[in-house]
């Protein structure tokens, strides 16, 4: 007969309420792990879904995700002819926003109410009334080349310049909705699933040309001012050749309006081609920097996200330790409650390993059940987080192993207490 299970059955409310408490703590631990994975996933998703082996960017910059990179659009032709390169796709990507009516979350509302009541919170009154600026990552690519919208869950992709966009479902747009971007309205023709940037802003896909219009087209007032200045500069020439001066001013103005820049070139290689070898070849070229896909991901993780990831990881470790301490204390109090029974068991000649085994088994069971319940709770609450939280069964498995070890260590104190119980304490009392 298993004494640990019998005791648990007898004290089932106490045991399972303790398990419930531990499971909630472990749910938080697993959720933090899920948040960390979410950040990593969000940082990598554009890169991995693009399917590029190499990312070519402006010399001396870290790439389109971590730093501003600009280069002439036509560079991709030169890369495409390098041996081993299957495809070189010019890409434009930058942040853009639209102003939408406020859409506060229930949590924000709750915190807002607290603020109104005078409770100190992170949200000040009035913050809620500000119209929400919804940020996006706009990615433009040539239709049919890599870098276009993957994971389309509704509608279709983009085949030509037609003032159309494919947006991620997280943006909240509906198919057919008209969205003002830059100086034009765009129609939402498709929706993607979970395509976000490293800051979790949803991605909007459009054609290269239209993305350049959205992102790079100068302000009309600025253009008018530039035209006026060009005309002034060419005023002297107008006295000699009036028609030539007008033409020159027009040409200069056109150059100023030029939006034929790109931020990166995504390069797809032939199977079996060494990315490093091709990167070296491109690097020899003028004014270009080349990163492999893993390097690009790493630049983001070890750049802007490094500290927050380290912070969360450390917090997670602290919580695991706290969970261990809590399990240890619970098991210790369980053992204190059983001192008399342990003394009787010892007097009846029960081997120590069986008594201590009972304590270990209860601690391990508490850790295991707490982890499984915590894992189930975490998976249940994941969809309600505003950002991606992605704990896996692997995480739960790892947590099971960790909590088993922690539970064994945590029960050492209780076992030490049980070892001190003297069998003679039940005789003569």
């Amino acid at each position, binding site marked *: 007969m298993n004494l640990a299970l019998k005791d648990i059955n007898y004290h089932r409310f106490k045991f399972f309420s303790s398990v419930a408490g531990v499971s909630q703590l472990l749910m938080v631990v697993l959720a933090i792990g899920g948040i960390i994975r979410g950040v990593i996933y969000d940082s990598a998703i554009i890169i991995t879904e693009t399917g590029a082996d190499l990312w070519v960017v402006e010399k001396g910059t870290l790439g389109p995700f971590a730093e501003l990179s600009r280069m002439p659009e036509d560079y991709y032709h030169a890369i495409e002819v390098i041996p081993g390169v299957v495809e070189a796709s010019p890409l434009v990507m930058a942040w853009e926003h639209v102003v939408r009516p406020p859409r506060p979350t229930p949590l924000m509302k709750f915190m807002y109410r607290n603020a109104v009541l005078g409770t100190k919170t992170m949200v000040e009154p009035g913050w809620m009334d500000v119209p929400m600026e919804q940020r996006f990552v706009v990615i433009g690519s040539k239709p049919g080349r890599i870098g276009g919208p993957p994971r389309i869950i509704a509608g279709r992709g983009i085949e030509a310049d037609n003032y159309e966009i494919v947006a991620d479902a997280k943006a909240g747009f509906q198919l057919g909705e008209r969205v003002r971007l830059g100086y034009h309205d765009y129609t939402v023709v498709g929706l993607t699933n979970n395509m976000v940037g490293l800051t979790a802003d949803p991605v909007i896909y459009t054609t290269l040309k239209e993305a350049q219009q959205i992102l790079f087209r100068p302000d009309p007032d600025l253009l008018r001012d530039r035209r006026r200045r060009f005309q002034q500069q060419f005023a002297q020439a107008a006295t000699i050749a009036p028609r030539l001066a007008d033409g020159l001013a027009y040409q200069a103005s056109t150059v100023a309006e030029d939006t034929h820049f790109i931020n990166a070139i995504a390069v797809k290689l032939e199977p079996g081609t060494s990315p490093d070898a091709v990167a070296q070849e491109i690097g020899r070229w003028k004014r270009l920097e080349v990163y492999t896909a893993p390097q690009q991901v790493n630049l983001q993780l070890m750049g802007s996200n490094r500290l927050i990831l380290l912070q969360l990881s450390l917090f997670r470790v602290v919580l695991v330790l706290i969970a261990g301490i809590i399990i240890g204390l619970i098991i210790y109090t369980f053992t204190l409650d059983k001192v*008399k*029974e342990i003394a*009787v*068991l010892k*007097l*009846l000649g029960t081997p120590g390993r069986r008594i201590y085994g009972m304590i270990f088994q209860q601690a391990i069971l508490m850790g295991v059940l707490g982890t499984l319940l915590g894992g189930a709770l975490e998976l249940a609450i994941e969809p309600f987080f505003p950002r991606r939280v992605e704990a896996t069964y692997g995480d739960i498995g790892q947590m099971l192993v960790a909590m088993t070890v922690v539970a064994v260590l945590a029960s050492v104190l209780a076992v030490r207490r049980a070892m001190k119980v003297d069998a*003679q304490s*039940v*005789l*003569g009392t």
Partner: protein
Amino acid sequence: MEYVVQAEKLVKTYGEGHNRVEVLKGLDLAVRPGELFAIMGPSGSGKTTLLNILGLVIEPTEGRLRLGGEDIYNGKRRDLQRLRRERIGFIFQFANLIPFLTARENVLLPLELIGVRGRQAVQKGMELLDYLEVADRAEHLPEQLSGGERQRVAIARALANEPRVILADEPTASLDSERGLSVMRLLRKLSSERGTAILVVTHDTRMIGEVDRVIRLIDGQVVDEVTESTAPSEQPVIQH
């Protein structure tokens, strides 16, 4: 004559130097199979220490202890825990049943500890509960039993490993006189029917008429020994 328990010149001291206290002072004791033997004495007389030594819980400082003819402390290192679970049964003042085990499981526990499991163990456990007239309470937890029922289950547990000696520590102290007497008569029946020697430590002078022999301890020494034949029929043999 063969004795189940034989103690010779048992000495037990605690502490050292000025703090040294001699609790047992060369105590001799011999118990026959099937004998119901009572140990009486005031508080501090050494009853509990004697019980602990006889129960192989603590070792005597000096002297010899034989259990079933085997010299326990003859220099060889013995597994006292094993000897305890195989040869001795215990009955306590408050039954001390394991609260999270049913009456049946409490009786099965000593059987399991000596390697008797499965159907054989269950059958034996139920026989014992039946013998003690608590078979119908087999699936109840100790908290669901009356004081008398608990003590009967405790006796069944003490009998489970078929010990040659049962040490009973104030088995009637928590019961009213009627139930206490009933338990003592039960112990009497057990000792005579099963041949198990039963050593009872008790303060309860009303129970003395049920035992075969009584020794009285004062300051760690036997000051009086009364056998059934020498005891007056109605009066308590020993009074505090």
